[in-house]
């Protein structure tokens, strides 16, 4: 049974008083999640009891540390149902994983080749491709989004041509909550043998990923968005491709043999892990994965769905709040059941992005913060998407399994206060000010 009260005891920070009498209500989970005690303890335990460099010692500590570190690869692989044909590489974060891919895959691209991304990407899945474009004179194309905040799959069909070499897409938007149909995208991409990359930074923490059945070649995500420590990212992908790719960085660990003239690379995955890795945090990430599996990713998903629908429903009272959420959008247009045509399972669940044309997101965030409620205001590292939505910034409340309905009530209440604070009528008279 999912017992949120019990779960909350695992997170010491949830008892933090932000201001006098104001307990933390943490609704910025899409930025980073909180860490359970077991993850924090794991880091202390490592440094207190078996800290040693890995892969390069014959002593007992080195062996223990190496085994603990290497075991996490297996956990990651299981967590997303990767296969024996895939390798698990540790990076610093999802961003580094994307950069690694753009750099190493990019080496084989030629002028005129095309990379397809979408209009709802995080900067982490835009800038590495811009950098590659500037190096290799390739072209980048964007899959447009529809009014329901879904990818326009018909447009994608037209975008994919023989020139398409890579299709790199977020599985879940960090702004709209849209869950994209990776299977469908992979199928299309494979008709021209393009490589498919999945940015799972927002999906891995919240929904079951079946990597082996997605048809994609690579997937990337960050530990810190799923109860693990900062400083660890994951890149999982086809060994066959990784073996053909040039290394990313050079140094210790990634080599097999070095002479005065040259070097040979280590095997995958070590080939892509130059230098001493972040051992303590990889091990702690493994603990986080165990913790999530123990609660059950399906349970997490169902619980977050309930929270999100509850919050969306409460937010309806604010007539002048513009909500940018794929689930809300598809409900509005009358196809709001969970198996609606376009909205993938879990679409729009876990985060709600909104804005008010009169009260600036920064002001909303500052005001709710005075009540201990942490939400995000800004462009959410998705400036092109903001432009598409016609705003410079928005607010975002994002949930995780330790949040409660009571916390959402607090949030809704202080949101009301924030809107009322600006007497210009953000809440009331706006209807007369703004034409529909």
């Amino acid at each position, binding site marked *: 049974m999912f017992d949120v009260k019990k779960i909350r005891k695992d997170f010491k920070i949830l008892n933090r*008083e932000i*201001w*006098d009498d*104001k307990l933390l209500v943490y609704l910025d989970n899409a930025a980073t999640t909180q860490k359970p005690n077991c993850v924090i303890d794991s880091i202390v335990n490592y440094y207190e009891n078996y800290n040693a460099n890995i892969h390069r010692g014959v002593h007992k500590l080195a062996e223990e540390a190496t085994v603990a570190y290497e075991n996490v690869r297996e956990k990651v692989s299981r967590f997303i149902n990767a296969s024996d044909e895939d390798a698990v590489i540790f990076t610093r974060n999802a961003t580094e994983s994307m950069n690694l891919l753009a750099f190493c895959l990019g080496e084989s691209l030629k002028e005129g080749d095309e990379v397809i991304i979408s209009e709802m990407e995080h900067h982490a899945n835009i800038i590495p491709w811009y950098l590659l474009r500037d190096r290799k004179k390739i072209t980048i194309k964007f899959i447009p989004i529809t009014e329901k905040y879904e990818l326009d799959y018909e447009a994608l069909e037209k975008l994919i041509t023989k020139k398409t070499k890579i299709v790199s897409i977020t599985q879940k938007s960090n702004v709209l909550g849209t869950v994209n149909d990776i299977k469908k995208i992979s199928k299309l991409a494979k008709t021209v043998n393009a490589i498919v990359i999945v940015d799972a930074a927002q999906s891995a923490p919240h929904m079951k990923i079946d990597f082996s059945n997605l048809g994609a070649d690579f997937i990337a995500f960050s530990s810190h968005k799923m109860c693990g420590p900062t400083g660890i990212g994951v890149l999982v992908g086809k060994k066959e491709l990784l073996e053909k790719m040039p290394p990313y960085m050079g140094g210790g660990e990634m080599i097999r043999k070095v002479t005065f003239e040259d070097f040979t690379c280590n095997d995958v995955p070590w080939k892509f892990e130059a230098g001493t890795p972040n051992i303590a945090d990889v091990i702690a990430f493994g603990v986080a994965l165990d913790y999530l599996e123990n609660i059950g990713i399906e349970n997490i998903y169902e619980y977050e769905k309930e929270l999100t629908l509850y919050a969306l429903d409460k937010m309806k009272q604010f007539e002048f709040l513009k909500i940018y959420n794929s689930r809300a959008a598809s409900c509005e247009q009358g196809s709001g059941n969970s198996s609606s045509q376009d909205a993938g399972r879990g679409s729009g669940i876990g985060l709600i992005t909104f804005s008010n044309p009169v*009260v*600036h*997101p*920064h*002001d909303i965030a*500052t*005001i709710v913060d*005075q009540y201990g409620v942490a939400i995000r*205001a*800004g*462009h959410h590292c998705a*400036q092109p998407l*903001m432009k598409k939505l016609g705003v*410079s*910034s928005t607010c975002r409340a994002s949930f995780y399994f330790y949040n409660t309905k009571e916390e959402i009530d607090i949030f809704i209440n202080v949101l009301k206060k924030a809107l009322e*604070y*600006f*007497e*210009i009528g953000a809440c009331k008279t706006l209807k007369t000010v703004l034409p529909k």
Partner: protein
Amino acid sequence: MTTAIMDRSTPQLDELYKEIILEHYRHPCGREPLERVDLEAEGLNPLCGDEVKLGLQIKNNVIEKVHLEGHGCSISTASGSILADILKGKTLDEAKKYLTYVKETMHNKPHSIDVEEGDLEVLEGVKRFPVRIKCALLPWTTLEEAMAGHKHVEIS
């Protein structure tokens, strides 16, 4: 355990959102277009994506009019409105003094010069909300760039 970063005294919202600030936000000065743009710059707050465009109409070293456009939060809008209001009719040298004064205020430094504060006083409250200092400074750093002849500025 209490550490230094855990500031427990609650800064009051009314310190930030003084009535004068809200008034400037509702009815900002400097929104009428200029007859002539002599100096201009665009400012961007990359933190939130807010943009401001500032233009100056100048005659004999005197700022005849300030024009501002763009969207911003209440703090940056009010700060820009106060700027437009105060600098109208001032010389460029005086404008520089105001700029120094506002920066000193925001960075919590003792004032090296004296100016007629007017509504600027209300920006004091922003200091209690460190993440919002950039918002208050945005129009002023844009002014600085315009006076220096640069067209674009990102504050970080």
